[in-house]
């Protein structure tokens, strides 16, 4: 393999792998994404290996640590093949039983199965779990099947077939045409047609061209790119090589944020392997095409996700955006034509070339083709990553896949598009999800964060949260964004502290319009969106903060106080124990008393009370003192 392999050799390797792999051989797959890692999957894997060694059945069972399955809430997740038996929240103490019962005796262990929260029925197979059933896992499909650190696993499931097809059967122009026909649009959020971007870049004459994979997933609450890079890095690399072939680029950069150590590790392993196999390097698949990819780790600046800022960062400067044109496809990294696409876009390219544009364009809506991965998080039962066809409604995602709102609370809003997006209220959740519909609702598709909020979420606080974020991350180059966001944060802070004045809401709207119109880059142009959408759909909540000095959701600390409802309190002393400031007193089985002057509103008692006996009310004592 020293000098790489040709197309024919790759196919031979693929045939060889599938010959040595028995289809019916039991395989224990353990999800090893960051989510399951945090829940101790590492020890689970070790325990399985130990147990299998003890029983001396190493020859007849495989163990595989796979990429993220997406259902992070239920981790650590273990799926047993060939049957596809789905065990959730597995603990070390269950390992021996799983091996002896399920692997050896072929019996299913009932109590480790997933229980459908709606029907209360136990579900055996992964594909029948409602969370997965309504999804269409194209890009994510192989995540749970392959070991991301083993290139052979990827080749076994058809990996690098798309590259072979592009190389052998298609000219670069034909590849671009195929991407254009597929209707693929940028998955980073803005939705620019990928094929058009590539054609522009191909059309620019230059001795060197660059290609960048944007993995600076900065939107808080979004982690699909992380999961793809961790779980199936070769699918992204393959897409990049195809892209490089199409536009004629010789150097690729994966710009990945430093907060994703596991993704960086896996992508580096994958690149090393791809080089060994001659899929990257001086002659890709023994052709005269030359292409290699480097990893660049971001240093923690949200604005770096903007394309011109990202290039400044790679060039060793501060992440400052610059005006366009010239667009990166004409003058990008080091002044050369550059194509920059998001992780998910690159992974989509692989599937489009492999299965054809016709197949791809049948998924989705008229103007938004294919699937989109969302990270479904917040106050929802089934949190995790979901891949759905474009055009699905928010209701289907939240209720059919997400299993509804946590703790039987009331749904309030869903936030899409991160700090650049907006909040969509309950009466709009039957909207189909595509680029245009979300934009009309005042939000954006964004990279795919979908944060579900319940009645305990204060919309003014959410708006302030996002604005503080963009204000801190504003690079400071242009005035509307630098000064404007600070002023908006000041007003919002005032409102959440009960010092809101008449006219503040109008002032916010005015500032928002100015910042949107005059900012240099996408960060500033979209920064006011969270404020504008919450004002549009939740204005009464703002008014209640400003006029009545009350936070109805009991979040803004100056605008509510906790009270114990005597009829509901059972005197269980849970809240007494948990209170860090001894604000709650009361003997066992007697009514507890909460001293509002000692209370720091840390919410610990509210969280722990099982009887809903603690409520956040409008502030009484302050109002009284003011009246004196």
């Amino acid at each position: 393999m020293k000098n790489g392999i040709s197309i024919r050799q790759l196919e031979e390797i693929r045939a060889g792998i599938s010959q040595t792999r028995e289809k019916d051989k039991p395989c224990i797959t353990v999800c090893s994404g960051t989510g399951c890692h945090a829940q101790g999957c590492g020890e689970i894997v070790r325990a399985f290996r130990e147990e299998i060694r003890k029983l001396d059945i190493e020859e007849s069972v495989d163990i595989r640590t796979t990429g993220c399955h997406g259902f992070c809430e239920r981790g650590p997740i273990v799926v047993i093949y060939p049957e596809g038996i789905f065990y959730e929240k597995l603990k070390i103490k269950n390992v021996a039983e799983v091996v002896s019962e399920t692997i050896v005796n072929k019996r299913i262990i009932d109590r480790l199965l997933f229980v459908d929260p709606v029907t209360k029925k136990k579900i055996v197979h992964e594909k029948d779990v409602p969370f997965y059933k309504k999804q269409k896992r194209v890009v994510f499909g192989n995540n749970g099947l392959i070991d991301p650190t083993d290139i052979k696993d990827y080749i076994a499931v058809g990996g690098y077939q798309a590259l072979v097809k592009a190389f052998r059967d298609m000219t670069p122009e034909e590849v671009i045409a195929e991407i254009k026909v597929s209707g693929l649009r940028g998955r980073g959020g803005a939705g620019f047609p990928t094929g058009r971007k590539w054609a522009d870049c191909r059309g620019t004459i230059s001795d060197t061209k660059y290609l960048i994979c944007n993995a600076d997933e900065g939107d808080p609450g979004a982690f699909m790119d992380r999961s793809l890079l961790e779980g199936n890095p070769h699918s992204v690399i393959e897409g990049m090589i195809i892209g490089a072939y199409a536009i004629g680029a010789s150097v690729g950069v994966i710009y990945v944020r430093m907060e994703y150590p596991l993704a960086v590790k896996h992508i580096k392993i994958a690149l090393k392997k791809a080089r060994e196999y001659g899929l990257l390097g001086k002659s890709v698949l023994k052709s005269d095409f030359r292409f290699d990819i480097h990893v660049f780790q971001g240093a923690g600046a949200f604005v770096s996700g903007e394309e011109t800022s990202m290039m400044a960062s790679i060039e060793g400067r501060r992440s400052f955006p610059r005006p366009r044109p010239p667009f990166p496809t004409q003058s990008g990294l080091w002044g050369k034509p550059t194509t920059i696409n998001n992780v998910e876009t690159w992974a989509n390219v692989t599937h489009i070339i492999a299965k054809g544009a016709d197949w791809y364009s049948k998924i989705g809506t008229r103007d938004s083709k294919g699937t989109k991965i969302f990270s479904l998080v917040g106050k929802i039962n089934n949190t995790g990553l979901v891949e759905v066809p474009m055009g699905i409604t928010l209701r289907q995602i939240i209720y059919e896949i997400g299993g509804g709102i946590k703790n039987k609370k009331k749904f309030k809003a869903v936030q899409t598009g991160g700090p650049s997006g907006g909040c969509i209220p309950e009466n709009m959740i039957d909207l189909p999800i595509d680029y245009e519909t979300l934009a009309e609702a005042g939000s954006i598709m964004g990279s795919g964060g979908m944060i579900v909020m319940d009645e305990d979420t204060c919309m003014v606080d959410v708006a302030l949260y996002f604005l503080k974020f963009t204000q801190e991350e504003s690079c400071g180059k242009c005035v509307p964004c630098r000064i404007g966001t600070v002023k908006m944060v000041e007003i919002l802070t005032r409102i959440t502290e009960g010092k809101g004045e008449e006219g503040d809401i109008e002032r916010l709207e005015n500032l928002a319009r100015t910042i949107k119109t005059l900012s240099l880059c996408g960060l500033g142009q979209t920064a006011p969106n969270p404020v504008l959408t919450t004002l549009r759909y939740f204005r009464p909540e703002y008014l209640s903060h400003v006029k009545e000095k009350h936070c109805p959701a009991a979040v803004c600390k100056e605008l509510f106080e906790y009270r114990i409802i005597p009829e509901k309190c059972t005197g269980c002393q849970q809240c007494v124990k948990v209170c860090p400031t001894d604000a709650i007193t009361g003997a066992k089985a007697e009514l507890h008393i909460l001293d509002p002057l000692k209370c720091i509103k840390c919410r610990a008692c509210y969280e722990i009370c099982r009887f809903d006996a603690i409520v956040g009310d409008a502030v009484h004592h302050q109002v009284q003192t003011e009246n004196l």
Partner: protein
Amino acid sequence: MTNKDYIDIFSRFNGEEGDLIPLLQEIQEKFGYISEEAIKNISRFLKISENQIFGVASFYSQFKFIESGKYTIKVCMGTACHVRGSLNILDEFRRNLHVEADETTDDKLFTLETVNCVGACALGPIVIFSGDYHGQMKIKIVRELLEKYKSKNEKESETAV
């Protein structure tokens, strides 16, 4: 940090302008923070002014200019964690440690930090305590964690004696 340490790191780079950020990352990885001396040395190596290097380094939140405590506590401030009450978790750490975010306790044991999002949103609110992920954090666990690491440190210093 000796001259040899710098030479070791510099030898892996070509000395181009684009090396600046990876270089700063390596130096911080090895020494925990970017010292004045480090900036002087980079300036000589890359032939860029110290001013410009500090300008770049201070722009990015990754780079630190003072030494951190023994254990670093990162409280995730991502949206998913926020709506699940991460601010209350941060407040509880502040109250117990008597420091603000980005500060280190007087005994140099704990550094409290906030991060924008670690991408483990399904497990929010999340805290990364000395490299270990703690999902679904509760206010009462804050004190338990601090006690755990305090006694861990005591044990370590005992064995060191």
